[in-house]
């Protein structure tokens, strides 16, 4: 099925990104109080952009995981069957023809390894393969989740700093107004 192609590409890209993101989250330590209001709002924009990108990556990973789990269910169902099965085979998106899965002849499935490579595997090997991929995705989802939480906290801290500065500026302006009034 076509959807599997993008799944492996997604995973490849996301793994690299989540590794980098996890490293980046540990590295930077900027104290927001040392920055000016302008720099703070710039930093906030940056972090919010990062948040959007990483959140959508996280969603892609979850979707890929759902597809792998669906495939796994399909394989276990096939594995459990002992007799021939009647199936409907899609010729187009809206046209199906009846067919038969001959249990004797169907002991293997084709899995996509990535970069255009496919391998035949028997049912149990296929399930192991799927479990491996799901494990990879889980690990990376967790990484991404941590980075998302970290980034959200950063945005909060920046907001707090910004509010603090705004109050300072306002207090100073009030003070100046008083001085001007009393002078």
């Amino acid at each position, binding site marked *: 099925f076509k959807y599997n192609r993008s799944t*492996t*590409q997604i*995973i*490849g*890209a996301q*793994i*690299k*990104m989540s590794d980098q993101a996890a490293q980046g989250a540990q590295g930077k330590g900027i104290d927001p109080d040392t920055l000016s209001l302008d720099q703070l709002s710039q930093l906030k924009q940056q972090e919010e952009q990062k948040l959007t990108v990483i959140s959508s990556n996280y969603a892609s990973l979850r979707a890929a995981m759902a597809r792998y789990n669906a495939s796994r269910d399909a394989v276990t169902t096939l594995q459990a069957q002992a007799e021939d099965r009647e199936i409907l085979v899609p010729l187009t998106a809206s046209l199906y023809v009846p067919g038969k899965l001959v249990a004797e002849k169907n*002991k293997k499935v*084709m899995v996509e*390894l*990535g*970069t*255009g*490579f*496919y*391998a*035949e*595997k*028997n049912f149990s090997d296929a399930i192991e*393969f799927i479990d491996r991929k799901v494990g*990879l995705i889980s690990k990376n989802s967790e990484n991404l989740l941590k980075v998302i939480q970290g980034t959200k906290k950063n945005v909060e801290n920046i907001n707090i700093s910004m509010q603090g500065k705004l109050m300072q500026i306002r207090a100073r302006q009030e003070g100046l107004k008083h001085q001007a009034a009393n002078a």
Partner: protein
Amino acid sequence: LTTTMSNLASMVDKEIALFRSLQEEINKLSNDQQTLMSQHAENEMVKEELDLIPMEEGSDGEAHAVYKKVGPVLMKHDLSDAKMTVEKRLEFISGEIQKVEGKLKEKQNKAQEIARKVQEMQQSMQAAAADAVRQIHQEQKA
């Protein structure tokens, strides 16, 4: 003094334009690097999976089949051929990554140089402006 200042100003403008174009190149190289890294990761995954496939025949007496997608067709490949292909591709990608990282570093260094130069020039422009103001004051007093 005004001519030195306008000379400096146009030089600063030129350097800033250079800096901008360097920035663009840096961004493009950065994107290339990202693409290459994700390709590397994907090929690594394929290599690991291929390594897991036993060379001996399976329980049905047949070797484990590996296929490569060529257009709409799946072509049967020899397991060892497939492994070699993926390894060669991995080497190629690693080489490309190193090249890009080298170029990236070079451009980033150049950009830093320009930033430093611009700072210097701006500082001397400020000094020249301060001098000019001082001169005008003295002329006014005289």
